């Protein structure tokens, strides 16, 4: 089943608060951090995997940023938000980075899009807990199938979706499989992947289809 590994995370209060405090001190003290893994798994779910207060929707509990990277200076990402705002995102050794797969800052490029969550620092920068680079999760229709790519329709646009080593499919709620042979033209498909800014195509990580 899609997402079962993620669904199985258990609450970890001590690691959560330790991680957030760690992120703050990491950002204040600089991005060179030794022994980050001593706090436990550095995955995006761990940081906020605990009950939190329910507030009015206008009140933000965590800081969230989206936009495109305009510059990378050291471990600071300078981001232009889609609504015209700007952000500075501090990546630390404790930051979970995703770009097709879990990765490092070396894989991140100017022009990439991102979503990030983290803790706002006194200087206005964001100490990132997790950064998802170019990630998309699109409702599409399969229009063509080739060995190394899918042709999808998304919002009445054609979208080329390249397969990568991680590409897997889920059929009607079944477990993920690398076998894409049961995909059919005309099927609605939910596609999780990573956008390629250079040619406006995507890399497919997971394609989910129904009956």
């Amino acid at each position, binding site marked *: 089943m899609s997402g079962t590994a993620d669904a199985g*995370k258990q*609450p970890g209060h001590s690691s959560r608060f330790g991680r957030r405090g760690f992120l703050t001190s990491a950002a204040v003290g600089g991005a060179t951090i030794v022994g980050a893994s001593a706090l436990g798994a550095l995955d995006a779910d761990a940081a*906020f995997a605990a009950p939190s207060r329910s507030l009015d929707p206008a*009140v933000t509990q965590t800081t969230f940023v989206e936009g495109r990277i305009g510059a990378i200076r050291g471990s600071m990402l300078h981001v232009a938000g*889609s609504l015209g705002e700007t952000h500075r995102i501090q990546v630390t050794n404790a930051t979970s980075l995703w770009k097709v797969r879990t990765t490092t800052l070396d894989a991140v490029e100017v022009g990439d899009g991102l979503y990030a969550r983290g803790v706002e620092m006194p200087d206005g920068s964001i100490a990132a807990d997790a950064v998802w680079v170019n990630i998309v999760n699109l*409702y599409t229709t399969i229009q063509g199938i080739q060995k190394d790519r899918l042709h999808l329709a998304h919002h009445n646009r054609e979208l080329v979706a390249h397969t990568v080593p991680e590409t897997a499919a889920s059929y009607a709620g079944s477990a993920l499989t690398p076998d894409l042979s049961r995909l059919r033209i005309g099927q609605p498909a939910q596609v999780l992947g990573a956008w390629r800014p250079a040619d406006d195509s*995507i890399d497919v*990580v997971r394609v989910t289809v129904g009956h």
Partner: protein
Amino acid sequence: MACSTNALWAGETTWFCCGAAWGPCGSAGGGACGNCRSSAYHGAWPNASQACWDITRPDLCGEGGIARRGCGSVMNVRHQCSGATVCISIADCGPRTKSFCGEALCCGGTCRTNRVLDLTPAAFSAIGSLSSGMLPVVITE
């Protein structure tokens, strides 16, 4: 209006983008309510209107009792496994439940079936990782 704890529904949530955005999301627009933004704590509900229901058809997956909740309705969404919560307001119609009947996510011995909610990246990432794509949730209002 604040979120509350009255049971509304339980199932799976996915995530989607809306409003001004980069990449393929640039064509998404403001959603059925016109004000949806990826960076806001917004969600899409399969019974935001009759026209919406006619598209999503959760009843075809056995989720026929989902109540009508229109634009601006407020809901609390709790990750079934971790307990992490986020308070959202409805800003779009979705997800297309009927296209994915029978999906299930389980943890702690309890499974949640069928996608009954879509969250913006901001809302989804407040309770889980975007790379998971889908989470089991309990929804209250």
